């Protein structure tokens, strides 16, 4: 038994187990920490497949930055709030589980079809060529800053738009008393009422 198989098995169990435990964790903080565990497991999966740079980015950005943002918001809104686990809509749980089973079957089928297509012309040798040459990071840089330069620049626009949008959304509105001659209440006066 090769070491790869052992590592893959452990990663599979940890990643999927953490994801399944997320379904049953009541506390939002527990859900966030289980998601971090699942993401670290996925980083191991990336490492196993030769995506070294993606694995590092996965740990730094996803398990680091994004989950800290989640935890920050959870703490800001109060951790002690627990979600009631009973479902007011009758039959919604069963429907969701049935849909999940159908979706699992579909995704598995499509995945296996994809494997068949990829290996139709004896693709075993292809598997080893991915990091040949200068290595993973340089290879990614060549693709990202060569063929995908324009999409890369567009993502910076997306990030700027997101930052500005969030600043506009969460700005504190200074409360001014509504003018007496104003028929429709303005946004500011609505803030006062709330």
């Amino acid at each position, binding site marked *: 038994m090769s070491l790869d198989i052992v*590592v893959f098995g452990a990663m599979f169990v940890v990643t999927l187990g953490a994801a399944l435990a997320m379904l049953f964790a009541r506390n939002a903080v527990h859900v966030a920490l289980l998601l971090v565990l699942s993401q670290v497991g996925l980083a191991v999966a990336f490492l196993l497949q030769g995506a070294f740079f993606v694995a590092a980015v996965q740990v730094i950005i996803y398990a680091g930055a994004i989950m800290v943002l989640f935890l920050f918001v959870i703490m800001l809104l109060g951790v002690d709030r627990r979600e009631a686990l009973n479902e007011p809509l009758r039959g919604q749980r069963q429907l969701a589980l049935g849909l999940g089973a159908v979706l699992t079957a579909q995704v598995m089928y499509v995945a296996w079809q994809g494997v068949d297509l990829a290996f139709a012309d004896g693709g075993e040798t292809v598997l080893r060529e991915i990091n040949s040459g200068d290595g993973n990071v340089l290879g990614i840089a060549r693709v990202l800053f060569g063929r995908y330069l324009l999409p890369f620049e567009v993502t910076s626009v997306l990030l700027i738009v997101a930052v500005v949008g*969030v600043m506009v959304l969460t700005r504190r509105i200074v409360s001014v008393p509504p003018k007496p001659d104003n028929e429709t209440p303005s946004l500011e006066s609505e803030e006062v009422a709330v």
Partner: protein
Amino acid sequence: MTEVSPGYFLALAGLLFTVGVVGVLVRRNAIVIFMFIELMLNAVNLFFVTFARMQGNLEGQVLVFFVLVVAAAEVVVGLALILLIARRRASLDVDNVSLLKW
């Protein structure tokens, strides 16, 4: 490079994606629903990396970065919206947010 067949990685990604879908459907806390969306995006990243390995080029790994950027922007905007809703309603339950107009 591992000898484990890509099919097993694809199976793991599919299962993670399904768990994410079921979580979005079952849970009612808005932040928790957001975290399940993150789980789905992660599963898609695993699909991309596995397909990159199967095809023998790095474009799938580059696509992961674009998914990452979109996920970051989506999380920032979504959490800001959740924050605003929670301030007004004092509740994170998505069942309570059923009116378009306050």
